[in-house]
């Protein structure tokens, strides 16, 4: 699966672990899967984990902007965690930090109450 999704009811945080290249081809199934869960759970926080994304182009920026708008409309927030240097470079270039924090978080630690 290109995205694994976990929900923590206590903190109302939704964790989406993306995996594989994130391009125009793969962005659509990823965002459909994430949006379905968002609409089902109505989380306060969306955590997008990029650790297993070896490549991302501007399609990934589109995905981030789209999820940011959705979370914003629902009164929630979003963070991006663990992007690899190449992926982080695209995020920085596109100014993703203006939308959400980009966080390095080791596995086993907690972000928004969800165990990574």
């Amino acid at each position, binding site marked *: 699966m290109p995205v694994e999704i976990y929900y923590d009811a206590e903190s109302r945080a939704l964790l989406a672990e993306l995996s594989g290249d994130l*391009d125009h081809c793969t962005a659509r199934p990823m965002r459909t899967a994430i949006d379905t869960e968002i609409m089902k759970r109505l989380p306060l926080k969306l955590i997008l984990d990029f650790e297993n994304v070896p*490549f991302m182009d*501007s399609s990934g920026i*589109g*995905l981030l902007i789209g999820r940011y708008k959705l979370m914003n409309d629902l009164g929630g927030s979003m963070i991006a965690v663990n992007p690899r*240097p*190449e992926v982080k470079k695209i995020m920085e*270039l596109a100014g993703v930090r203006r939308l959400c924090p980009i966080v390095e978080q080791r596995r086993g630690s907690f972000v928004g109450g969800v165990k990574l």
Partner: protein
Amino acid sequence: MKSRIINEMTLRFPSLSENERFARLAVSGFVSCLDPAVDELGEIKTAVSEGVTNCIVHAYRGRIGEITLTVRLLEDSRVYIRIKDKGCGIEDITKAREPLFTTAPEDERAGLGFAIMESFTDKLTVRSSKGKGTTVTMQRTLHSRKDQDDKSES
């Protein structure tokens, strides 16, 4: 000044979304003999991905057409990439190159394709003719190998 061509390849493939990955892997493989640094190769792959995606999303919107991808390895570790389509063409190239401008917001396009191609290459040219197609060329000099050679000489 024209540089000598050391190696060259041309690929023709249909504008299927699955071919975005194929195109960047093919370019990555072809350029690898110049021994680029990981980040240089990553930037070239991203630029190719943006160019090919433009053909799929914009040039051949809603239909399948042919994309021609040419890569030349030139003297002094220079890479030349040309991505050509016979699609709808770009009405206003200046506007299309503006960051955040997109004609496909419903597909969640960020409007950053040309901006990324521009920042990840040394030179980007866009030629387009309405109804006839678009040709994007990019040039990038790889520094890693030259730097390594300089180090081994000293």
